């Protein structure tokens, strides 16, 4: 493979990892809370990202990404834990009921106007991941002296992963709301933990792969809690003792 091919492939793969994280957040939040506010938040994140990239250009490398990761990660972790907890309680109480029946919308999602929770979640996800993609483009592109190819690789990754996410929109909406809330809560908690600790200077041994380890850890904990909650519901006297 030529040097240009290596730059293109490397930025494509590295940007794909960040784009997958971005699309997962937008997809999960949109399916759980509604698409309009989620997509407006994502679009606003892209506009701010474009403005930052246009103003800073290659000086992007000076952006304090560690502090931004800590802030966004901590907020996602704290919010994700709320959905994680509620999702566990609801799945324990309802199981997978509602698989074929439309469920009631979330009580805190406004019927009209902007859902600011969905807006902020997707805005932060798109802005942080977009900045990470921009940093990949700048660092790889400048190091190899191939900024144009680096931009092309990253753009291809965002378009392809975005299209896959769009295709998954309808199947994801069919997941029962209680289970979806648990899945999205687990995802936000995992991403939040990863970013917050990375921003604080903790080194993850396997880099982004450790997000999967966190997903497995929080997923197993959720399954255990659901089992314990169900047992307590069926044997309340044992719980009281």
């Amino acid at each position, binding site marked *: 493979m030529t040097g240009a091919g290596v730059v293109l492939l490397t930025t494509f793969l590295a940007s794909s990892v960040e784009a997958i994280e971005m699309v997962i957040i937008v997809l999960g939040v949109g399916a759980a809370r509604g698409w309009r506010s989620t997509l407006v938040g994502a679009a606003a994140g892209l506009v701010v990202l474009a403005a930052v990239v246009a103003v800073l250009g290659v000086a992007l490398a000076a952006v304090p990404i560690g502090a931004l990761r800590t802030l966004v990660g901590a907020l996602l972790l704290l919010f994700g834990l709320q959905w994680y907890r509620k999702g566990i*309680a609801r799945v324990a109480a309802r199981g997978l009921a509602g698989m074929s029946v439309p469920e009631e919308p979330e009580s805190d999602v406004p019927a009209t106007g902007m859902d600011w*929770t969905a807006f902020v979640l997707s805005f932060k996800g798109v802005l942080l991941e977009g900045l990470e993609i921009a940093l990949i483009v700048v660092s790889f592109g400048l190091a190899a002296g191939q900024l144009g190819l680096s931009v092309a690789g990253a753009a291809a990754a965002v378009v392809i992963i975005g299209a896959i996410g769009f295709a998954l929109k309808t199947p994801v909406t069919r997941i029962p709301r209680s289970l979806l809330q648990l899945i999205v809560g687990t995802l936000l908690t995992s991403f939040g933990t990863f970013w917050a*600790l990375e921003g604080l200077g903790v080194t993850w041994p396997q880099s982004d792969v450790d997000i999967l380890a966190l997903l497995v850890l929080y997923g197993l904990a959720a399954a255990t809690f659901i089992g314990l909650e169900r047992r307590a519901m069926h044997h309340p006297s044992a719980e009281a003792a």
Partner: protein
Amino acid sequence: MKTVASIVTSVLRFVYGFIVGDDWTVAAVVLLALVVTGVLAANRISSLWLVPLVAIVMTAVSLRRSRRAS
């Protein structure tokens, strides 16, 4: 003036609901764990287990508390 106060109240309520939610103890203990992790990381002490452990333990505590309250 009343409108400004109303907007500020709404924003503060949103921020509180977003960060703290219905169980302030979870947010407080997780934030504390993040601060401790930051201090340990600054001193080159590995602590990537602390926040996930605290998050899982506080989830258990919160679930148990809400079950007993209901």
